[in-house]
């Protein structure tokens, strides 16, 4: 090992002896069963989401129905133009 590598090894060895601070970490809680309040909230949330989907679906169907099944091929002003051309 040359002098440079020896120096790097010394630095590495010194670093390994430096101790990081003590830490205070609490383990995450295990998966706890849902409480009654949690279950009620989940149920309300699910119902709300379902209701929103139904409202959007109904709105979409109404929008589709509102659209004319056979739209005029040309806008009305074209007819007016033709009419004016006749005179």
């Amino acid at each position, binding site marked *: 090992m040359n002098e440079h590598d020896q120096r790097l090894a010394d630095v590495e060895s010194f670093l390994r002896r*430096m101790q990081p601070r*003590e830490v205070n*970490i609490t383990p995450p809680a295990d998966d706890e069963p849902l409480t009654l309040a949690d279950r009620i909230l989940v149920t309300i949330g699910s119902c709300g989401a379902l209701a929103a989907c139904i409202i959007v679906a109904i709105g979409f169907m109404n929008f589709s129905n509102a659209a004319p099944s056979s739209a005029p091929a040309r806008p009305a002003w074209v007819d007016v133009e033709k009419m004016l051309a006749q005179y």
Partner: protein
Amino acid sequence: MDEAGQIQALINTHGRALVLFARQFVVTHADAEDAVQDAFTRYWPRRKQADDPVAFLYACVRTAALDLARSARRARQRDLHASHDEAFTFDHAAETAELQRMIAQQLDALPADQREVLIMKIWGELTFEQIAAALAISPNTAASRYRYALEKLAAAWPTEVPDERT
């Protein structure tokens, strides 16, 4: 060993190094602990999907610490200088403690990509393969960054490195 015991064992084995690792992304030691705490909650449900659990844990800590650093609440504190000299304990001889402080300051001065590899290798005791997996880089890149970091620290080192064992 039950799950709680497994988590506690992980914390005992890797906790200090993980907080030190998180510390480079956040301002205070307490923030680093928060990031590690958060990382454990991300890590635990998905730990069985990881090829290398320790590398994955480091990746979770990195993500959690970066998220914390980005949060608006912490952004206000970003102008405060984060120093690594409070990240270590100095319970050795006075001259050695002084050297450790100097080294901690040199750690701060390292480029971030080299510093994180150095911390994972020295204090996390990860292999280059694990570091590579955690940082999504190649093992060769991890090894190169590690060597560059050591060389930079060595350049600022006193001629004679004190040996605490003597």
